[in-house]
């Protein structure tokens, strides 16, 4: 009696702790292609290629009607775009004017600079995820951009906060099957999306999980008390590639196209 009263709780504790130990986080490792790289308003399926309709069998497709989604701001800001404070809206308007005139001066990727967070998570040319217990690394084929998410409990130090970068400094933890990531120490010369500007006070929280087998979702919330009227949220989804050649990213080597590097 006495023995069983002691043994049963002990066994229960052992059973519980072993179930906690065996419940490992999901494995995100792999190569993914975006499902909505430019968001639902950005053009979507066929935006680049000139769009549907699909041709009749054996017939050539109709001539393309455009080369790329319009990205100069000439149609104003989408209702789903981040809501900017007057100071930052004025910055956006000045950049839009230059873009409509054909200037690439405000385009970081045209200068081979990293897209920066959170725009990097568009992953238009594909994404590779590498995962260990203590770190997840996200790699973007576009501009060979990289970000690391530390999972070992470390926190940004004053030195880190004093040294902003394009990808920022990301720490994460698991909440069940969801990876929760906080990103700080971001440079202010990147864009939230499109060419929406932000301040050096921008921070990002992401919730990343599989919503169904092979479909990874990143819910991104951007906070910036100087540039944004209210936090902005967006959702990116990616499909995991299952075999070659789609599960291979190609070298981007952007500097190859820079005049001084040739």
């Amino acid at each position, binding site marked *: 009696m006495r023995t069983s009263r002691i043994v049963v709780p002990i066994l229960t504790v052992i059973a519980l702790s072993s179930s906690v130990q065996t419940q490992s986080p999901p494995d995100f490792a792999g190569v993914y292609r975006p499902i909505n790289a430019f968001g639902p308003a950005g053009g979507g*399926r066929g935006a680049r*290629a000139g769009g549907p309709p699909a041709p009749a069998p054996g017939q*050539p*497709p109709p001539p*393309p009607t*455009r*080369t*790329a989604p319009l990205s100069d701001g000439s149609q104003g800001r989408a209702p789903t775009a981040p809501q900017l404070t007057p100071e930052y809206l004025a910055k956006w308007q000045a950049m839009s004017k230059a873009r409509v005139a*054909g200037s690439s001066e405000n385009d970081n990727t045209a200068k081979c600079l990293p897209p920066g967070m959170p725009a990097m998570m568009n992953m238009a040319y594909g994404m590779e995820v590498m995962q260990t217990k203590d770190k997840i690394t996200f790699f973007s084929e576009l501009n060979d951009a990289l970000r690391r998410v530390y999972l070992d409990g470390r926190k940004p130090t004053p030195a880190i906060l004093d040294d902003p970068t394009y990808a920022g400094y990301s720490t994460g933890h698991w909440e069940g099957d969801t990876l929760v990531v906080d990103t700080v120490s971001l440079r202010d010369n990147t864009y939230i999306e499109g060419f929406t500007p932000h301040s050096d006070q921008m921070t990002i929280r992401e919730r990343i999980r599989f919503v169904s087998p092979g479909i990874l979702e990143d819910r991104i919330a951007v906070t910036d008390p100087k540039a944004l009227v209210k936090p902005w949220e967006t959702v990116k989804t990616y499909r995991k590639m299952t075999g070659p050649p789609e599960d291979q990213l190609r070298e981007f080597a*952007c500097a190859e196209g820079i005049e001084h590097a040739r």
Partner: protein
Amino acid sequence: MRTRIILSIALLAALPLGDTRAYAHHSNVAFAVETVLTATGTVKEWQWSNPHTWLIVDVDDGKGGKVEWAMEGRAPGVLLRAGWSRSVLKPGDKVTVHYSPSKDGSKVGMIARVTMADGKILPNAPPGD
């Protein structure tokens, strides 16, 4: 002495004719992306390079002459998935290029699609992208 000067001038004149011509790297905003024009001509050079590819074409000017155009394509990585390759186009190939013209009026375009002499179509995005 005179020979040396003439030789130097000849060398200077020859410099821009190499294969290392560099074209400016543009953002999409440099082009009227919602206008698509058509040009037919002969491939002069196909540059399989990052961050953008370049198709140099001698375009028929409609008056029996040729005008050189530089057509900017997307990156090798995305074009590979759209059915292109480093060797898909060769000097001398006849092509039809659908392109968006540069906003500044220069003879530079952004490729929407290339149709090869045998009718094969090279789109600027993979299917469904």
